[in-house]
């Protein structure tokens, strides 16, 4: 770290030791905060803060992309965020729902800790650090509480998404003073204070607070800062900016007029694209690309570039149609307009007519490719390493676009017939497999949609023959007959459950809570409004974000007492000899 290097240069080993000591105290400060947060996790619904009014109602660990976007927005895009983040968890189809049940492992904290030091170092090593800090210390070799206070308060508010409490401020001021005096460097002290903010649970977790609702006695409402966070993370995938925080600070955000005004501003911002990308990356389950492997003997064209760029292609398609062109969401399943890169063009077996990294591309009318389901990303992600999988593809169509979950297969299923990819077509193999009564129920529901996509192999390359036999891409759903990928696309375009599922996902993604039966009327009304807007995604986001339900308070259930298990303290009976 910069301060460490400087300390060694100036005063040698003694300074380093004091620096380490100061850092140890910083760890203590941070850990004290964590203990508080851990307590918060298990806190009963009625727990109140020192003011006796606000109530903590939810915790959500910020995602990797939210972390990155926040750092870029707060400190500038030049800050490098180099770390391996803790894995996220998908619940009911969304990582956003999983984030509400995630904790922090010790190894994960180590990563955040190292990253905090790196970011603080970069932020305070910049040439313009005086203007970045906002003041100049009286003596750069000593602590300066007045100057440090302004800096910590400003960046603390951006990172915690609310003003720091006096005790939070004081603990960082203490760390800054300690670090400055022991290392002989004011900025070294600030670095410690900033790092402590960056590893604080109030930054790493979105702490949602409720307060008594003045308009409804006995009821709670989300406090204004929590509302601001919900808005900015839904629309920008990042922390609230100064204007949104100001609206929260003044309480104006509680008014519908100011709320709508802020939503319009946020959606009009270029950062809405980042927000939309984050939402679709979550909904389309694109995190799966991180573990995507293909057998190189079967799919030699697959490599890391193909994996990364297939993911990007799906996002570009979605964001271009839905954000840039403000198009009809249903066209996502039928549009022949997409984006390709040079590596992707080789898999699509088309020329790449551009000198840029990406180019727009429109598949010919007679092409079997149309819509996001025929992007090699969707096709490759939902397939086996060495073959296609109509079942996986069918399951994901139902789950991702129609919000219909499919149960796990029974544990005792014999997959040998269906996995023998050297015999006939997969349709025939699945029919054999479906002779098993325990399997046929689900397969009848999932497979038709996948079988209609069988003209694309496990990498998404076009084919018409498998093992020397022509591939049949007709499919029978309950009410309709489909043929090929275009048939699936048309089916989804006209299926009412598809826009309803998007509405549900946007809502769940924004509030971090799974919908329940009583939400149905609200979701139905939102779906109706979405249809009335011409299925425009920005309108949907605005409509959800401006609704009262988006900010409704769901107090957490009381934590169940831990089950009492038999004591292991008593000695085990001796082993018979």
């Amino acid at each position, binding site marked *: 770290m910069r301060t460490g290097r400087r300390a060694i240069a100036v005063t040698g080993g003694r300074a380093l030791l004091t620096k380490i000591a100061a850092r140890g105290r910083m760890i203590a400060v941070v850990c004290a905060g964590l203990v508080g947060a851990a307590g918060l996790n298990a806190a009963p619904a009625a727990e109140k803060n020192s003011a006796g009014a606000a109530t903590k109602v939810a915790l959500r660990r910020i995602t990797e992309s939210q972390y990155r976007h926040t750092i870029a927005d707060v400190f500038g895009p030049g800050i490098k965020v180099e770390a391996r983040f803790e894995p996220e968890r998908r619940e009911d189809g969304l990582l956003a729902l999983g984030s509400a049940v995630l904790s922090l492992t010790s190894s994960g904290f180590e990563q955040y800790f190292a990253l905090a030091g790196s970011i603080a170092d970069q932020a305070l090593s910049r040439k313009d650090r005086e203007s970045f800090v906002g003041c100049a210390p009286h003596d750069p070799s000593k602590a300066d509480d007045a100057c440090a206070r302004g800096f910590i308060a400003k960046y603390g508010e951006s990172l915690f998404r609310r003003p720091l409490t006096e005790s939070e401020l004081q603990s960082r001021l203490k760390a800054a003073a300690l670090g400055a005096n022991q290392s002989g460097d004011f900025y070294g002290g600030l670095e410690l204070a900033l790092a402590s903010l960056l590893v604080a649970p109030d930054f790493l977790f979105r702490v949602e607070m409720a307060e008594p609702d003045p308009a409804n006695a006995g009821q709670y409402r989300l406090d204004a800062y929590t509302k601001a966070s919900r808005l900015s993370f839904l629309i920008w995938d990042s922390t609230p900016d100064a204007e949104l925080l100001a609206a929260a600070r003044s309480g104006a955000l509680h008014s519908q007029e100011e709320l709508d005004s802020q939503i319009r501003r946020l959606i009009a911002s270029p950062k809405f694209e980042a927000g939309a990308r984050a939402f679709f990356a979550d909904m389309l389950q694109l995190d799966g690309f991180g573990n995507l492997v*293909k057998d*190189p*003997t079967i*799919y*030699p*064209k*697959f*490599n890391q*570039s193909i994996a990364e760029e297939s993911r990007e292609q799906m996002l570009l398609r979605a964001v271009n149609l839905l954000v840039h062109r403000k198009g009809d969401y249903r066209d996502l399943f039928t549009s022949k*307009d997409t984006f390709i890169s*040079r*590596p992707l*063009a*080789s*898999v699509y*077996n*088309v*020329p*790449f*007519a*551009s*000198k840029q990294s990406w*180019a*727009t*591309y*429109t*598949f*010919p009318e007679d092409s079997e490719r149309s819509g996001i389901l025929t992007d090699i990303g969707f096709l490759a992600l939902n397939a086996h390493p060495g073959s296609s999988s109509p079942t996986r593809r069918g399951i994901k169509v139902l789950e991702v676009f129609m919000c219909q979950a499919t149960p796990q297969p029974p544990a005792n299923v014999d997959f040998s017939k269906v996995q023998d990819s050297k015999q006939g077509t997969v349709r025939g193999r699945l029919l054999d497999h479906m002779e098993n009564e325990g399997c046929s129920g689900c397969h009848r529901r999932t497979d038709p949609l996948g079988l209609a996509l069988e003209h694309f192999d496990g990498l998404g390359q076009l084919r018409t023959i498998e093992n020397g036999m022509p591939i049949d891409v007709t499919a029978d759903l309950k009410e309709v007959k489909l043929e090929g990928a275009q048939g699936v696309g048309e089916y989804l375009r006209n299926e009412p459950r598809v826009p309803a599922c998007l509405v549900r996902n946007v809502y769940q993604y924004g509030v971090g809570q799974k919908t329940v039966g009583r939400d149905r009327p609200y979701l139905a009304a939102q779906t109706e409004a979405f249809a009335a807007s011409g299925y425009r995604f920005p309108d949907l986001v605005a409509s959800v974000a401006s609704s009262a339900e988006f900010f409704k308070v769901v107090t957490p259930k009381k934590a169940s007492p831990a089950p009492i298990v038999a004591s292991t303290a008593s000695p085990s009976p001796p082993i018979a000899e």
Partner: protein
Amino acid sequence: MKHHIAAGLAIAAAALPGVASADWTRGYVVEWNEPAMYYGAKDGVIDPGTDCPGGTNPEVDWIKVMTTAGYTEEEAKWLRNPANPTRSPVHGQNQMAFRGKDRANVYVNPTSTPDPGLTAVTGTIGEGIDLDGSKKTGFTSPAGEKGIDNNFYKTVGCWKTYRGPRRLSSGALQFNDSMRNGGWTTVIVVAGKGNDPMNDKEVTVGFFVSDDKMVKDGNGSIARDYTFNVKPHARYEAVFPAKVENGVITSTKAVDGVLREPAYWRDLELLRAQIKLEMKQDGSLIGYVGGYRPWEDVYRGWVGARGPVIESLTWVQLPGVYYALRRNADFSPTGPKGEKTHISYALRVDAIPAFVMTPDATAQVASVQSYKSLAAAEPGRSMAAIPSIRVVDGIVIDPKSKYQAGPTADVFASRVAAAASN
């Protein structure tokens, strides 16, 4: 293939005069190329075989070479001793250059020393193309075709750098590695006027370069179906009138052209060049480009690659290479009685399907024509540079070296005296 590019298509060919689109085109990228060297042994890479019954060119006894050149045995041993300052990992042994008459530099003046010889191919089978139309001259192809003209193979085919089975000689591995890792890219466009690409009497085949690098697939091979934009180049380009019979493309007229050579000397300048390429069922294109090339360029390439290093590592005396190339040269651009400045040669080419685009990247090449009029001014002829070293007259110039080689260099005596005084 029909395709629609939304980014607005423009036909670059429109910038060129009188270009008509072909009825069919196929694009390829060269994923491997090497001098066509028939390997006559059953296995190994240097074993004796029908091509070279004695095996590859044997390792040179450099003490003997240097003493023959006038150095004392003590001096020769001193020079060859790796512990002495006359040897260096960078320049090998510069003093080896000065073994000509009156200690002339044999790399720039190879005739200053008698011909030390170079083991030549004595087999009758060779690969390539019948360049002169005579069945009486040249080798017989492995398939039995007579009159294959490839005196370059005859000359250097037993040199261990060139010798080995297909795609396994050390030279081919070295330079194709460089090409496949992004060193350069050669693309081929085949365009025909007929209805059947496998049988077409009017075909044109173009060899061009591209700035787009090849990409390796999951198996480490070059990936198929990538896109490459033609880079107009003032030198590297060859366009062949040809025909196709049962998928085999052969020249209908010899032409002059220059290809990017997989060698230290980059320019493969071919006179009366012809092609024999086969479009395979798997979509690949394999075969030969043949012609007569200036043989002195080949020699110059090896000298420029640091004569002492090449000689020590590849077991040849470069003057022997010079004499052998000169001896086997078989073509004069000025006529049968002119000086034989060129030698018959064949490049073995393996290409895979690719999309070849016009230089502005807006459309697939729809016909084969020269792009030289769009090229920047021709750069000077060049050796492939060896990073961070400066080669002059075949030796590395290193001003910091403790020992400076030269015709009048004090090789041994004063060093012995200095050592004795210490």
